[in-house]
């Protein structure tokens, strides 16, 4: 009987549950609709993050004639993406043909989502840095290498072109990221004291989150 308490203590020790593909999901994260969420591997979901996988496209009333099973993935997140504390990720929805419909959301690789954001984008491409306290309104599209400044509200349906900096309420394109955005000095060892750079490879950051 002496082994059991130590065993429970061991599982309770780490804050994160690590999956086979290296995803780290916090025990304090709030995840609904787990079957509808895919994580690409080496992705971090932190404490108090709310993933609303339960908001899916309604099942078609008439089943597919081919008999193919309708995929109901509502949130798909790529590799080495970090979702910080307090962020809510919910698939976007809108009125379509008189019915309120939810659309699947896609988040790419090496995306950093800062703390306390509300993300309802239709798609976020790779190497995007979203700072803290941002709101991405329904069905906006964020392309590659975009930096979103703190406290930005990206309006609904906005398309953010690649290599741009977005800021303000409502969000406007306020500039372009430099050519060196996301490039770290040396292969792995960045000299910034952090080992990773904004918009770059987040593998180092994922590695040190424990």
């Amino acid at each position, binding site marked *: 009987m002496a082994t059991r308490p130590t065993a429970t203590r061991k599982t309770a020790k780490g804050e994160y549950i690590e999956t086979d593909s290296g995803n780290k999901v916090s025990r304090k994260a709030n995840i609904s609709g787990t079957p509808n969420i895919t994580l690409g591997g080496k992705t971090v979901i932190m404490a108090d993050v709310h993933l609303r996988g339960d908001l899916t496209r309604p099942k078609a009333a008439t089943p597919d004639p081919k008999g193919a099973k309708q995929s109901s993935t509502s949130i798909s997140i790529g590799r080495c993406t970090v979702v910080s504390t307090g962020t809510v990720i919910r698939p976007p929805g809108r009125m379509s043909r008189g019915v309120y419909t939810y659309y699947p959301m896609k988040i790419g690789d090496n995306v950093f989502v800062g703390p306390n954001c509300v993300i309802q984008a239709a798609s976020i491409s790779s190497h995007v840095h979203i700072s803290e306290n941002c709101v991405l309104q329904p069905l906006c599209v964020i*392309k590659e290498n975009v930096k979103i400044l703190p406290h930005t509200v990206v309006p609904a349906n906005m398309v953010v072109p690649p290599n741009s900096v977005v800021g303000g309420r409502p969000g406007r394109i306020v500039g372009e990221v430099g050519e060196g955005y996301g490039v770290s000095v040396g292969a792995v060892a960045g000299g910034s004291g*952090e080992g990773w750079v904004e918009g770059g490879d987040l593998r180092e950051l994922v590695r040190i989150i424990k």
Partner: protein
Amino acid sequence: MSQQFPYTYYSCSCVDTPTSLLPLSRKSVEARSSSDEEETTFDPRSSRANFSLYPLEHLLYCTECHQMRCSRCTTEEVLCWYCPSCLFEVPSSTVRSEGNRCTRSCYNCPICTSFLTVNLLDAPTEAQRDAEQPPGPFILSCSYCNWTSLDIGIKFDKANNITGQLQRVRNGGIIVPTPKERENQAERLLRKQPNHEEEEEVKSPLEETPAAQAPPDADDFFSNLNSFYKSQLADTETSAGPAEFNVHSPSSIQRLLNLYSTGKKTKRGKPKPMRESLTTAEGLQEYSSSSEEELIHRLATSGWEATTSPSQRSFQERHPPRFTSDLRPTATLLRTKRSKRCKTCRTLLSRPEPKVNTTRYKIKVLALNNIPKVSIRSLNTTPQSLLTDLVTISSSMQQKEYTTLHPLMPYQFLLTLTNPLFDPIKVTLATPTTTPGRVQTRVTILCPQFDVGANTDVWDDALNSTSSQNNPKRKSAAPGLSVASPPDNSDGKQAEAGKIWDKGRNWTSVIVEVVPGVLPGTPAFVGEGGEVREDEGVVECPVFVKVEYESEGLGAGETPERVRMVGEGKEKREVAFWCVLGVGKIVG
């Protein structure tokens, strides 16, 4: 946006060289910069400094000139135009003829600038729901501020070609001819009246259109005047006369018209003087006191809410209106992809792939890969605390370490230089003992001369360290982040003058001691009193970085002063630049 501390800005060398397009003789530039280097220290507070300070990722590097290049010392060439909203490429010929705005259905809200969507005005009925093309009417609506095109009285019949539909409708739903039709109409009018006796007849065709009931707007005046001048020029073209240089002379008007038209350049003759427009049909704008009074009345009755703000006015495509009811949705401005060249030697520094949806570059020579990276952070922050700040607490908490510097208290910062080059470098740092300006902050670099290792393959280092695994100095990864060194190494270690703090594969860190100065307006302040000026409490330390290294191979076009043969095919190189370290903010 407030600045995030700490930061490092690099001063591009173009700050003390005149940036003219004319190629300068290299000797003079060299002489200038060398004398500057010896005599002056860089002042981050000078008003010129703002134009030369850049974060490292915005800088490029010219491999021919061996200097960093900022946006001021590069020239740009447009590779392609595209709409940021629909991400369609626009051919440059279209840009030349139609202007730099999207001609599809991309529009911005005139109130809040966010993107407008085309929506059905009424909820569709059950029968319409399944139709391929839902019937209209449609409106443009902003989901951010709830503005719709109904606010200016505009509805659309179709969901596509909004631009075409918008062109023929004025605010309030008045159908007007498109600019082209309008021009033709105005020309027809002018041809009909060779002399002014037929003025009665002239008016009648205008009255047929509903637009005639409304007062003519600026577009009408423009098209009328445009066609009037064109007809006048056609009349005078045959007969040559003496050239005149006043505003109303035909030659200057012709020049003016050429600005507005996109056609081929016509041969410049010397046309004779011609008359000015006399009627409204000819584009004469008459002053009427009643319209002014109406305007004042409108201002008085509708109030502040109904007037436009300066930013809304400047956001309009043309004719800045006074009232929100006169605002028009603005077509989305196009964006470009550009390649960059060095201004001095015309070498290509960056060239993105011309396709809109790719983010790859064909050529990209970054300063990041050629110049050591200088970074600074507070000695008290451990990487682990940095991480928790980043992902949990709001930025105000995260910044506390840097934004609450007390005057006359010593603070220690960790200055790290990372070497991107494949050769080991020798670094010499220099800084003025006190920062320029009224708030004199004392800055001391404890170890101004040190070496930084080469940026060798990570695996080389890893393989070497396996042989001596119990060596505690196994810190190949990022500074301070390595697994081997505990993050709380600061309490066991004392900063010593003349000694480096820490060292890794291609990075070295040293301690910088900063004693913030006294802010003006406080009792301890010596000197002229007065208010604290904007950003005077921000501590920015100018640091001069000189890097020496030996590199293999001799590049073409080397300057003999900078490169000296050392033997064995190696050459000695020297790179020197100023950078500014933003350490924090002093509290009063």
